[in-house]
């Protein structure tokens, strides 16, 4: 084994590729070669390093020096100054004010523990971190029922938004007799402002695969699908590669580890409709039909894809599974709160210093997440509101900044954790505009199946348009609440039921913004 | 009909429409079901789409049902007996037959076996005869025979051949050795082409039987009717339609009374029909319209439409259903029974029916199958015959525990080529049939202008044949046979096999039956509409 004096991680994700990461990597290798440093400095590709809006990002160890927005012309200087002479190029480093307090504590990470550290395109690196041990253990040492039990014990809840206990969901399907069962990963990630699943898949695709393999074995599914939105081209590429590698290593296919268990994983590319995040609509779409939700019951766990029992779980949920199996349910319970164990990956966006991802314990307060991980509100402006949980979320005002974020606790404030998107708005933000864009989103994404959603979202959009253009009346606010309440009561699926929360929280908490438009 | 009567003792569709969804496999042969029986086609398509039934379609045209089929093959018209014998050979060779059924319910199995096991019915040979690949024949045999329950649906594509009766008995043979009779979802199911063909047959509108298939040659039956009708009756089997026209042509038939039929367009070899009609001394036509046949009549009587009268129709699954009067007839038009009664009484008789109900009562008395199908009981859903008594629920499928004739009779049937085969002068095979939008001779459908805009005359020809003759789509071309010639626009399509042309027979301006061959099945007396030799030429 070779020892290097320095290691450089280059973040390869969608945004960095667009910013020319490959060209920069090539030039970096060329420059190192020219300076005869190839034996001393190791360049590794990693997934996203967890930052957003930072272009091509390099992270140099030791010291975890982070260069952001690196351009081709910067490379010779970095090689010359930092790698050769040991002087950081301070004009390119992430500003101290931004990283201050930023928690790079990877030990508190479960899902993103490898992201940004290993090369996601190399199965050996994943195996080097203990990867696929859990799969081997599950298949060779555990009965499916024991796995379901372990996951139940862990308290893991679905990370797609609804927070349904994962073990419980599996326990409906696991005992069913069927000639075929399916497991489906919901990687449709359509919630605005959410890209946690993308970074999990880009940064550590094998973790998802391993989790999926264990899950399939637990419920008795021999065919799995990863339903992924078509825009996630890098994820698709990396997952395909990872599946291929897993086959080569005998981790997938027929009679895995001589256990008699067969498993295939296939990627299904979706067209990016928001409603296809709803599990039954996802299944319809997977079957090649219009992406529209189905009536429940029967639930997919009993009659899902092609009428066979089908479990659908979110990417983040399943990425927790290997760690739970490796370390045990009790270890997992050591994270988070009593009712909501484990960690949660948040996407922090909007008027913050450092937009990006963070993985923190369940129950961490909104204030901590915004201030510590988001670097606080940008440009010394005051915090006004955070839209938590995605477009179907709630506008939380200042007074709720210290709310502990988990599924149960938020519900007490009529709010939801949802996909874990946190959109921060400063005092300059106008809630009429914000609500307008949320409503526009739902109007655009309504699948058209049921009357209240198809027509109601259009009507709400027309009303908010009037208000936004100064033609509204105060009664319109009440009318919007009344309509969205009826939609919440009558819509077929969650999509049509969603607008009540953002509308009500916006109108109740930020009424002045609306009244201002009515003069 | 004659074929099924010989095999089972009864000649109707053995099973019912509801049974379609109980079949694991359905074979459609010689029926453009989607065009001629669209609602039964819908039921079959439902069964396929719901995953209940697999469909096999055998037809020289790629009919719409082929789109729903697991296996579709095109046969050369007229090769059906060879195909059935081949399927049976494959089935017997592999032991896929229903041995128990053969043992307990059938007779003359050895006779059948001796015929079908002949080398000439091997898949390889039948590929040469029918054009269906040998492997496909084996595949069909396996799918069909291995099904728990399989049904055959056919129509005029099976019957309108000089070997029509042979074809029908072949379907019966196959279904018998597979044990697909006498159970829900199986059966041999001839689809009746007109609203009340079944009823016309049931009521004795045939030269050999009284109502209820009671033979005119049977002394007892005759006595029964003589007593009931208080008269003496002839025991001599009468003439069939085609015979009637022949006799008229020869001069021995002097008078013809036609009720609601149009032989001018529906009968084969139109020139012959015209000559016959011209020769008849006295022709009476009773119809709603001045039909092409009525033009030849000496007296034409105005009859009423279905919507202007009460009575019953019997559908293809033997279901007797009420028709109800909704409109008053135009002018002085009268119901057919009333007109007949007027003539009878003028001839010195003593008829006194007050309405259709009176007649129905007499039908109930004299027709055993209709004994319990009374005016009062038919209701909104109808009753399926046989229904002998007032308390009988009707019969969904026939031959449950025994055949009408006791044991089902198998027959070894030799394949015989059609009467007229293509030759150098007439190199193509002409076959005829219906389109979805038009009906029979067009007397009714062609009065709706929208229907005519949807479907006009045409001749369907293959792309290969069109190319070799330089014929463009929609180009009006000439079609000739030994009987005559017509013109029609070409419909050039891949839906029909090379060497075969197809003409719907609805149109008086392009009458397909000017071309067809009047050669008859020797027993069933059905003309060979589905095969004759033809030639097409460009006009210009």
């Amino acid at each position: 084994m070779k020892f290097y004096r320095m290691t450089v991680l280059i973040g390869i994700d969608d945004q960095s590729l667009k910013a020319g990461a490959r060209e920069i990597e090539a030039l970096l290798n060329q420059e190192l070669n020219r300076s005869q440093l190839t034996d001393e400095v190791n360049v590794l590709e990693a997934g996203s390093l967890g930052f957003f809006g930072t272009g091509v990002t390099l992270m140099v160890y030791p010291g975890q020096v982070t260069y952001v927005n690196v351009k081709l012309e910067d490379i010779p200087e970095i090689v010359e100054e930092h790698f050769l002479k040991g002087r950081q190029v301070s004009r390119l480093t992430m500003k101290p004010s931004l990283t201050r307090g930023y928690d790079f504590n990877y030990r508190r990470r479960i899902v993103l523990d490898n992201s940004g550290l290993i090369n996601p395109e190399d199965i050996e690196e994943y195996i080097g971190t203990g990867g696929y041990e859990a799969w081997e253990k599950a298949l060779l040492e555990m009965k499916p029922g024991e796995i379901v039990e372990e996951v139940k014990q862990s308290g893991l809840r679905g990370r797609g938004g609804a927070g349904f206990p994962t073990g419980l969901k599996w326990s409906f399907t696991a005992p069913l007799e069927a000639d075929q069962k399916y497991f489906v990963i919901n990687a449709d990630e359509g919630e605005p402002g959410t890209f946690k699943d993308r970074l999990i898949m880009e940064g550590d695709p094998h973790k998802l695969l391993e989790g999926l393999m264990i899950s399939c074995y637990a419920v008795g599914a021999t065919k799995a699908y990863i339903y992924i939105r078509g825009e996630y081209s890098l994820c698709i590429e990396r997952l395909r590669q990872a599946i291929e590698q897993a086959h080569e290593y005998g981790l997938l296919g027929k009679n895995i580890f001589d256990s008699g268990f067969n498993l295939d994983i296939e990627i299904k590319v979706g067209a990016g409709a928001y409603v296809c995040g709803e599990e039954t609509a996802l299944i319809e779409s997977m079957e090649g039909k219009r992406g529209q939700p189905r009536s429940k019951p029967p639930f997919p766990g009993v009659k899902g894809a092609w009428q066979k029992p089908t479990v659908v779980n979110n990417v983040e949920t399943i990425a927790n599974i290997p760690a739970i199996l490796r370390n045990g349910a009790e270890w997992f319970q050591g994270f988070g709160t009593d009712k909501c164990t484990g960690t949660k990956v948040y996407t922090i966006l909007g008027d913050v210093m450092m937009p990006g991802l963070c993985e923190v314990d369940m129950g961490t307060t909104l204030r901590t997440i915004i201030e510590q991980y988001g670097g606080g509100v940008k440009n010394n402006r005051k915090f006004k509101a955070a839209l938590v949980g995605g477009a179907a979320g709630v506008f939380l005002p200042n007074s709720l900044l210290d709310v502990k974020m988990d599924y149960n606790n938020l519900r007490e404030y009529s709010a939801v954790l949802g996909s874990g998107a946190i959109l921060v708005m400063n005092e300059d933000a106008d809630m009429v505009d914000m609500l307008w864009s949320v409503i526009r989103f739902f109007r655009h994404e309504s699948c058209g199946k049921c009357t209240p959603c198809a027509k109601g979202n259009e009507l709400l959009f027309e009303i908010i348009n009037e208000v936004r253009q100064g033609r509204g009346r105060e009664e319109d606010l009440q009318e919007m609440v009344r309509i969205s309440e009826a939609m919440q009561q009558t819509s077929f699926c969650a999509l049509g039921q969603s607008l009540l929360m953002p509308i009500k929280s916006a109108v109740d908490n930020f009424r002045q913004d609306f009244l201002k438009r009515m003069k | 009909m004659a074929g099924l009567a010989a095999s089972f003792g009864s000649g109707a569709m053995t099973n019912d429409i509801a049974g379609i969804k109980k079949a694991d496999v359905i074979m459609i042969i010689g029926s453009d079901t989607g065009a001629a029986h669209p609602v039964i086609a819908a039921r079959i398509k439902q069964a396929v789409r719901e995953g209940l039934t697999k469909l096999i379609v055998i037809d020289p045209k790629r009919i719409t049902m082929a789109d729903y089929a697991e296996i579709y093959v095109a046969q050369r018209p007229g090769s059906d007996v060879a195909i059935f014998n081949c399927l049976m050979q494959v089935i017997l060779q592999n032991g896929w037959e229903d041995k128990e059924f053969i043992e307990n319910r059938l007779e003359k199995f050895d006779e059948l076996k001796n015929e079908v096991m002949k080398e000439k019915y091997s898949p390889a040979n039948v590929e040469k005869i029918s054009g269906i690949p040998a492997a496909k024949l084996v595949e069909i045999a396996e799918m069909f025979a291995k099904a728990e329950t399989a049904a055959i649906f056919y129509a005029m594509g099976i019957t309108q051949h000089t070997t029509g009766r042979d074809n029908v008995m072949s379907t019966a043979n196959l279904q018998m050795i597979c044990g697909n009779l006498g159970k829900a979802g199986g059966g041999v199911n001839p689809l009746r082409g007109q609203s009340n063909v079944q009823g016309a047959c049931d009521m004795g509108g045939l030269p050999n039987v009284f109502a209820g298939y009671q033979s005119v040659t049977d002394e007892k039956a005759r006595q029964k009717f003589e007593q009931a009708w208080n008269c003496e009756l002839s025991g001599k089997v009468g003439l069939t339609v085609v015979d009637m026209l022949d006799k008229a042509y020869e001069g021995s038939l002097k008078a013809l009374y036609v009720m609601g039929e149009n032989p001018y367009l529906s009968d084969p070899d139109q020139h012959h029909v015209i000559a016959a009609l011209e020769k008849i001394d006295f022709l009476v036509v009773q119809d709603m319209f001045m039909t092409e046949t009525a033009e030849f009549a000496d007296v034409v009587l105005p009859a009423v439409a279905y919507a202007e009268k009460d009575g019953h129709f019997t559908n293809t699954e033997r279901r007797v259903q009420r028709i109800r009067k909704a409109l008053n007839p135009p002018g002085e038009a009268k119901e057919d029974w009333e007109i007949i009664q007027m003539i009878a009484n003028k001839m010195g008789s003593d008829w006194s029916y007050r309405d259709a109900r009176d007649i129905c009562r007499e039908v109930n008395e004299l027709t055993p199958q209709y004994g319990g199908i009374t005016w009062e009981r038919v209701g909104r859903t109808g009753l399926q015959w046989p229904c002998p008594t007032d308390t009988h629920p009707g019969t969904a499928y026939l031959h449950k525990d025994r055949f009408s004739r006791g044991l089902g009779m198998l027959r070894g049937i030799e394949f015989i080529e059609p009467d007229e085969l293509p030759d150098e002068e007439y190199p193509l095979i002409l076959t005829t049939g219906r389109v979805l939008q038009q009906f029979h001779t067009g007397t009714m459908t062609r009065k709706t202008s929208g229907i005519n805009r949807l479907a006009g005359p045409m001749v369907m020809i293959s792309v290969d044949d069109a190319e070799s003759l330089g014929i463009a789509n929609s180009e009006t071309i000439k079609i000739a046979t030994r009987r005559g010639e017509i013109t029609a626009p070409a419909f050039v399509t891949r839906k029909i096999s090379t060497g075969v042309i197809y003409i719907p027979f609805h149109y008086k301006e392009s009458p397909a039956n000017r071309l067809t061959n009047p050669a008859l099945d020797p027993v069933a007396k059905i003309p060979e509409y589905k095969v004759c030799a033809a030639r097409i030429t460009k006009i210009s």
Partner: protein
Amino acid sequence: MKIIINGQEIEASPGETVLNAALRSGIYIPHLCYHPRTGPAAKCRACVVEVEGTPGLPTSCNLPVREGMVVSTDTEKVKNAQRVVVDLALSSGRHDCLSCEQNGNCELQDAAYYLGIERPSFHFEQERYPIDDSSEFVYVERDKCISCGRCVVGCNQNVVNEVLNFANRGFETKIVFDNDLKMGTSTCVQCGECVQLCPVGAIIDKNARGVARNWELDKVETVCPYCGVGCQLVLHVDRRKNKIIRITGVEDSPTNSGMLCVKGRYAFDFVGSSERLTTPLIKENGKFREADWEEAIALIADKFRLIRDEFGSDALAGLASAKVTNEENYVFQKFMRREVGTNNVDHCARL
């Protein structure tokens, strides 16, 4: 089993839905997308009810009955929710009842009436869809469509012609033929299943437009005069004009379950055709002249008698008909056999 709806005890059978049990018992619940032949779709959401012990407002069309279930269909909460749903359907599109063909026979109208919606209360800015009258027999006005989906189910699952579907999403959802072709140029075979299933005036019989109001027509059940399937029809008849205005299929018929083909539903002009024969005609010198029944019958009776007496009974023959009733065919063969004395009776069964 027993369930309670609005305090009333109702006998229900397992597998039945709450909507069915209610409708059967004379309790109306507004519903737009449910039809017995297309099944519960739970799409329109007008049929929501309250069930004791169940959160939210479940749709009754796909809610199976449970022993002892307590259902309310008329609480303020239920009615308010239903009102918004029906009002949304009524307010979007152009539901001009006064001139609508479906007036008096419209399920949206029934729902609005029940809920006391006097006029649509929401305002939608929307473009109008062009009328599609390209088909011979069917008229499509998408502005009246409420996207209930019955036509789509009917086309794909009942008649299985697989032509109709939904295109676009959300508020822009619309029904399309094939890949959004005009109906007349699509692969539609104009069986009219969609017309029969449409609860509003969006898909209607083109040739019956503006001809008669639904309540003026008598409905007479009978059997189709075309092929041998024997589909049961409802003739919608204007008695004063002595005319068939439209034809529909009998929904619960064992032969066709409401389905028809283009002939059975639309090719009925022949009945009222001016070409119909209205008097007996006698040919003289190669030309027909009108005659009265007395004369015509006398002539026929004379001729038949004469020929029979001179050439024997078998010199006469008769063609019965596959298009007339059993009773008429019976009488015809009786006439030929008894009065003429011959078995020369046949019809075109073989042709």
